[in-house]
């Protein structure tokens, strides 16, 4: 340090030039990441570098939790055991009824020739930490591509849907919560069977049903479950309960606010659902830009041909 020449002799490029260089590099990355998602391999690599620090950061909390459970009293354990046993009994009865009902449903489905319901596999996972980003609602879980998590899998807890896996790194995955502004789930009202799409309402921690007709049959306290028509979420998962409906004569749509059923912003253990069944292929998407125009032209031509055919007859 002392033997290097003084700073006015040895200088790299001027700070402003460097700032310009790094700023343009960042902007290029931003555009690549936001628009084209090209930067995912780089992101995976960096996430792997940051992984030990992240695990380290959650370790003390796990440690204190473990110490706390170690010192929990005998009486409390006995009490917990008793309540859990009672609950198991209750659930066992429910399970028996459920099994019977499921068998009956399967039989009925076979009778009407519908495809059998898909089996869903659930993998327990632990929430590591919430993303440090006030703009979005995301958490990270301790399962990644190495454990077989796939992007798009729904994530639930014991009470209902929590979110969806949006990005998978080798060791951890990112789950976007229901309340995120960009998250949309197809839902169904249990009482009436009305279908709708629920969007995250951002910081308020609520869900919003958009584009509901003002006279739609929905009321406070209605339970919303996944409708399962998108092929991503299995049908019948509890999503939310309607808490407020604003019907305004000025707008043709009602604003329906609902509260998530699952512990979206609390709870540490979640289930990642995955189904291995093969789905029918997606219908072809509308071609973009040039292709679309070409397609339109082609379609117009075929239409003309059709007309000519009609004329000749």
């Amino acid at each position, binding site marked *: *340090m*002392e033997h290097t020449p003084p*700073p006015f002799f040895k200088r790299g490029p001027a*700070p*402003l030039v*460097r*700032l310009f*260089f*790094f*700023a343009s*590099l*960042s*902007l*290029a*990355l*931003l555009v*690549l*990441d*936001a628009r084209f998602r090209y*930067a995912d391999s*780089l*992101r995976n*690599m*960096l*996430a792997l*570098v*940051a992984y030990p*620090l*992240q695990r*380290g*950061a*959650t370790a003390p*909390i796990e440690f204190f939790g473990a110490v706390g459970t170690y010192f929990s009293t005998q009486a409390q354990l006995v009490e917990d055991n008793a309540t859990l046993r009672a609950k198991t009994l209750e659930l066992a009865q429910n399970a028996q009824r459920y099994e019977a009902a499921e068998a009956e449903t399967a039989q009925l489905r076979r009778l009407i020739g519908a495809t059998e319901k898909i089996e869903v596999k659930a993998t327990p996972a632990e929430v590591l*930490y*919430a*993303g*440090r*980003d*006030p*703009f*979005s609602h*995301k958490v*990270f879980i301790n399962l990644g591509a190495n454990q077989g998590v796939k992007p798009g899998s729904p994530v639930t807890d014991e009470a209902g849907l929590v979110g969806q896996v949006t*990005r998978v790194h080798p060791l951890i995955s*990112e789950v976007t919560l229901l309340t995120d*502004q960009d998250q949309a789930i197809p839902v169904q009202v249990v009482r009436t069977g009305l279908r709708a799409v629920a969007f995250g309402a*951002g*910081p308020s921690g609520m869900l919003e049903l958009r584009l509901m007709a003002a006279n739609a049959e929905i009321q406070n306290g209605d339970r919303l479950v996944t409708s399962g028509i998108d092929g991503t979420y299995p049908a019948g998962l509890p999503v939310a309960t309607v808490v407020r409906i604003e019907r305004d004569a000025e707008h043709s749509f009602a604003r329906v606010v609902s509260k998530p059923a699952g512990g979206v912003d609390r709870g540490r253990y979640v289930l990642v659902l995955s189904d291995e069944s093969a789905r029918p292929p997606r219908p072809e998407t509308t071609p973009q830009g040039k292709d679309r125009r070409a397609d339109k032209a082609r379609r117009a031509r075929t239409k003309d041909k059709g007309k000519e055919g009609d004329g000749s007859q």
Partner: protein
Amino acid sequence: MALSSPEHILRPARVSTIALSLAIALFLNFLPWPDMRLAPDFVALVLTFWCVRQPRLVGLGAAWTVGLLVDAGNGVLLGQHALAYSLLAFLSIWLSRRILWFGAILQALHVAIMLAIVQTLVLVVRIAAGDPFPGWEIYISPAVAALLWPMASWLLLMPQRRLEKEQTI
């Protein structure tokens, strides 16, 4: 303030100390904070400190790299913190002579302003990317970080301080 006065001749900073402090700051950032809008950005604070104190060791390149790590670790837009930290490093290096002239409280004020500018840059980037405005609470985090500045600079200068005995020789 004793820290900024030239009566203590400090030891040269070691690169290992800088790397370790940045790692600890990253670790603190990854802690599960109850409200992310109020938690200070420790990485930004430590980066500012080293850019002000050691502008020749820590510069825009280091800031950019650390920013990328923060981006990937938090699952936000890749390049968002890299851009913000590059600007922060530039501002710190540009103002380093001026900042060191002041006492701890005025230094903290400078840091608060720089961190607020950087927070605004992040805000602009995210809104341009199509995110909604998260509320003015996000400016609490730079203020909290600036309040931590005197303590952080005392802690970070610890490895460089000489013992009393050494100074008398």
